[in-house]
């Protein structure tokens, strides 16, 4: 029954992924994002209620939560008419990952984990929230590079297919990272405390996540401008992709 909520959420995200392709349907796309996100929120709440805690510790379960966080970050930061192309960058992968989570059983998975819910919210929740922020920052950085390239090569349609101004994209990318990094810090700290209590060594995922933290920390400290900053945001995102899609399976096994 709870799983049935997947469909309205998926339909909302899917509709948004398609409708953002045209300026004329972008308003309908935004409504798709909102309604889909509400349906997924209900799905997650139902899963948490059923499990009596934090049920998203499997690879696909955490992917489900990750998609929700990415869409939430998009709704907060970028769900505006001039950011239509950001929606086009974010919503198709979000819809695809959501489907992958379902196909891998992440929507149905709601078993009780062997860790406390407080730890899981602090660790998994915050790390995933940070990753969602970095994903959005990467989408903004991609838009920056694309827009900068169009300005450099003096594309005649630069004012017809308008993006937000370059400096707004740069500022928004930096702010998104600035909000996400403390979340990653908290999530990592919770994980390291647990690691020391267990006396376990760092696994590959943990090492990579630390490298990601160091990279984004360096970006915030050095404040690289223009293309350099955008490339670094994308480099950090590449680490997030490896961490999220390649190494995270079995982290809590």
């Amino acid at each position, binding site marked *: 029954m709870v799983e049935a909520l997947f469909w309205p959420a998926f339909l909302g995200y899917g509709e948004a992924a398609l409708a953002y392709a045209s*300026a004329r349907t972008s308003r309908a796309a935004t409504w798709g994002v909102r309604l889909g996100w509400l349906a997924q929120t209900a799905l997650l709440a139902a899963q948490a209620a059923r499990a009596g805690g934090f049920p998203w510790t499997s690879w696909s379960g955490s992917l489900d939560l990750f998609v929700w966080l990415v869409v939430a970050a998009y709704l907060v930061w970028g769900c505006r008419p001039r950011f239509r192309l950001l929606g086009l960058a974010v919503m198709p992968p979000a819809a695809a990952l959501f489907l992958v989570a379902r196909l891998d059983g992440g929507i149905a998975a709601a078993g009780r984990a062997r860790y406390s819910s407080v730890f899981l919210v602090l660790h998994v929740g915050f790390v995933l929230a940070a990753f969602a922020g970095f994903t959005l920052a990467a989408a903004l950085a991609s838009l920056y590079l694309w*827009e900068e390239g169009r*300005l*450099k090569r*003096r594309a*005649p*349609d*630069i*004012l*017809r297919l*308008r*993006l*937000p*101004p*370059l*400096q*707004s994209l740069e500022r928004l990318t930096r702010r998104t990272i600035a909000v996400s990094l403390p979340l990653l810090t908290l999530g990592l700290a919770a994980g390291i405390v647990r690691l020391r209590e267990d006396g376990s060594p760092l696994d590959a995922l943990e090492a990579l996540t630390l490298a990601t933290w160091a990279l984004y920390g360096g970006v915030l400290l050095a*404040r690289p*401008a*223009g*293309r350099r900053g955008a490339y670094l945001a994308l480099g950090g995102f590449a680490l997030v992709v490896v961490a999220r899609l390649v190494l995270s399976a079995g982290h809590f096994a």
Partner: protein
Amino acid sequence: MTSLSLVGLSHHVAPVELRERVALDVEAAAALARSVGDAVCLSTCNRTEVYVAGDDAAPAAGALERLAGEPLDGVLYRLHDEAAAVHLFRVAAGLDSLVPGEAEILGQVREALDAAEPGPLLGRVFRQALAVGKRVRAETAIGESPASVSSAAAALAAQVFGELEGRRVLLVGAGRIGALAAGNLASRGAEIAFVANRSPQAARRVADRFAGEAVGLDELPRALAAVDVVVASTGAPGVVLRAAEVPERRRRPLFFIDIAVPRDLDPAIGGLDGCFLYDIDDLEAVVAETLAGRRAEAARAEQLVAEEAERFRTWRASLDVVPAIASLRAYAEQIRAGELAKLGDRVSERERRTLESVTQQILNKLLHVPTVRLKEAAAGADGASYADAVRHLFGLDDG
């Protein structure tokens, strides 16, 4: 029923030498409108049109011919009723303008309406035209892109920096075209910080106009370090600024606009990190593209105008049955009041008020559906026959 007439000339049919003779400021246009009766005169650099409530637009045509100082046969166009209204809707939407979607016309229509003292028909048509103009701009992108080289330059700078408020501009050259581009940037909040020119006097003259600082061409490196936008438009035969002379900027982009022919700025500047360079050909290509976009949006705008024309048609048609509806309601009210009067002192004041209220409600409910149906029929072809039927059935005489 009062009809609507239009007589006028525009850039489509009249050369500028003629248009400038009939062009009027707002007060003079309002005076002309008053002189021909219930009328509104819309006069801009591209058109002078007089909208008249009534069939007779001859006095308005005569007034325009007197202004022109010659007969205007073959130049003046004359439109009536729906055609005149639709023309005004297209004008307000910017669809009849030289540059499709230009924004000034909507304000000019509003000024013409405010300055005149139109009757109900003209007031309604002009108010609807203003609504059409706003709707077209809200629901299409017809007016979003710049239509001139100088406004395109300012829009491109905004595409880099966002708001231009507080951005500093260096104007290289003190010519008219450069000053025009600088003026466009200043109108968006940019500060014209420096004006550099070979002739210090010319530089000072333009700098004073923008409250900037006049500098010599040898001071370009200092000025470059302190600005965000450079507008170059000198008459120099060769390059004025080479890429090697542009200071490295690690954090702030620098936007170059070169509207000089031959070009003032080394094309290699566009390849520098953080630098963007647009020359006159680039700007003209951008304007051509945006104008093409405006024309594409114009097709959507025409659809909106057609919808509004349909609403106007429905409203006009509903006027055909208004006298019949008014007579029917007056007849019913007369019966109601007469029957209440027959009660005399047999009811108390409180009972009378209750009866007033109840009978009024009965009347309204009884007449609601016939009123709606009559208006619906009026929008179709058989409004007049419905109105005749009502008059016949109830023995009405509304003239």
